[in-house]
């Protein structure tokens, strides 16, 4: 009976996976063939890929996507880490307010956020009204709840105050102890939430369209423009975006599992 239910659950899993992968597969095939009007596609070609990879606009958009992804993530992680450190160690009573504050962005939609930011800052002449600053700021806001949750959950899993006190008794300052003793233990939480954040920011079209000037392009924006030109080319762009997302996920996951594996292996000998 158990075996039977295992088989059926495997079947369901496979079906679901196939269901999810079909659009992706179709897109890949579509981007690799000249003609797919019959059942069997024919005329294998890499021309679509050649075209986009020789297009400087595409390469720039790739580079800019990375930039506008990585910078907000790094900033947000640092801010949340320091904020949580100060709150947990010195002002534990403020913790619930910090939580509320960090959760608010969940309820804000991209259009509203970008429009409000434009209204508020675009007219000014300060550094805040720079297009890039506004974009990065908006991205920080969007990913804040995810980063906050990841780090907060990681901290809950360890007895942070006691570990800090233990380090303090050994002669360490609290802040240094935080980075040497607490952060390594919540690295998993941080990487997982960064992953989520990468996914979110990679998929953004609304905010970047509203906030960035025409010279800042992310891949979604490029994809949108490509769609107007040729659907085969757009498919190729789409496949590249997917592959990059997969690659980032794979890298982070292997990094994670390798570090745990290493720990166990070292300990075992």
């Amino acid at each position, binding site marked *: 009976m158990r075996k039977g239910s295992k088989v059926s659950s495997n079947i369901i899993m496979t079906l679901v996976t196939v269901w999810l992968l079909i659009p992706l597969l179709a897109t890949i095939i579509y981007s690799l063939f000249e003609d797919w009007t019959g059942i069997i596609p024919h005329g294998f070609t890499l021309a679509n890929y050649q075209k986009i990879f020789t297009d400087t606009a595409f390469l720039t958009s790739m580079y800019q996507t990375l930039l506008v992804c990585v910078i907000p993530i790094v900033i947000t992680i640092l801010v949340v880490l320091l904020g949580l450190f100060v709150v947990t160690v010195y002002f534990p009573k403020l913790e619930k307010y910090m939580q509320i504050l960090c959760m608010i962005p969940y309820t804000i939609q991209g259009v509203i956020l970008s429009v409000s930011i434009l209204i508020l800052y675009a007219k000014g002449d300060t550094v805040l009204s720079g297009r890039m600053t506004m974009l990065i700021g908006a991205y920080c806001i969007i990913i804040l709840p995810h980063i906050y949750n990841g780090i907060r959950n990681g901290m809950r899993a*360890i*007895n942070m105050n*006691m*570990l800090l*006190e*233990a*380090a*303090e*008794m*050994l*002669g*360490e*300052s609290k802040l240094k102890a935080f980075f040497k*003793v607490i952060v*390594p*233990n919540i690295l998993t939480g941080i990487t997982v939430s960064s992953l989520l954040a990468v996914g979110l920011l990679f998929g953004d079209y609304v905010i970047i369209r509203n906030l960035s000037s025409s010279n800042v392009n992310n891949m979604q924006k490029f994809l949108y423009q490509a769609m107007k030109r040729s659907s085969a080319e757009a498919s190729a762009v789409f496949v590249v975006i997917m592959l990059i997302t997969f690659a980032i996920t794979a890298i982070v996951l292997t990094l994670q599992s390798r570090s745990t594996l290493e*720990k*166990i292996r*070292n*300990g075992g*000998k």
Partner: protein
Amino acid sequence: MAYIHFEKINKIFGTNHVLKDIDLDVEKGQLVTLLGPSGCGKSTLLRCLAGLEQVTDGHIYLDGQEITDVVPRRRGIGMVFQQYSLFPNMNVRDNVAYGLKLKKLPKAEINQKVEQMLDIVGLSEKISQYPAQLSGGQQQRVALARAMVTAPKVLLLDEPLSAIDALLRKNLQIEIRRIQQQLGITTIFVTHDQDEAMVMSDMIHLFHEGKIEQSGTPEQIYTRPATKFAATFIGNYNLPTAADFNRAFHTDIPGQDVAVRPEIVTLTKQAPKAEDGLLVAEGTITSHISHGNLIRFAVEFEGGLTLNADVVYENKLDFGEGDRVFAAMKKDLVIGL
């Protein structure tokens, strides 16, 4: 001035007055125990000494220097916590070396000290394991090594053995005492287990509701409890009212209550020979409980007084329920409270 000197320490959390005018001295090289029931403020006093908690009022001196407002990391105090507090991301070697690295010692010296200390706590072969791979007792021994390897002026142990099973716990008590004496580290040990306090300490300070109820050597505390609370907490004292006791034994112990240790009461079937200072009364055995090496008989006397008496168990029960027996004890061992 003593090596560690607490002066009129008060600690108030909100409306909770946890430490009340504590005066306490600890001599250099001694192992001193803070003993008391849960919630009486033992950890709080320890944390005040460590600097992890600010005193509301009072002064703390260590080695002739006032340290009341010194930050924890500059006090030169090592601590082992009640819960496991090893750094999970570091192996045993790195955990123990943590404090030495902060002192910027040469690497070779750090390694040598770490290995030496792990040898003392008997965990040399675990040096590259991670805390999650160690048992609770092993983790606490690593924590002990980590605290001691920097040669702190004072070592604070806050119920380090409370999460460890009975047998290992007994071994570790003896181990800690041995290491403490070998290294001559002034140590304050917190526990709510009286046996543990008896086994380990040079001095015991009995805590009760934020005050020190009684201080003394283990023997003094055990044989001469000064208050009713002390007698309730330590040993297995009988605590009848003085009136009941005096009536049954035809004597005149002063005070409200009388404290009688069960092991000073001897039971015989024949009346013992009358002696100066020997209190004797006849009673009836009402029950007995086996404690393994001894049997505790409950004896009821005229006027409703009941006393427990311990008899070492050899190979048979000397008395049964309902037997008439004579209970005798030396008057100068009976304590009036």
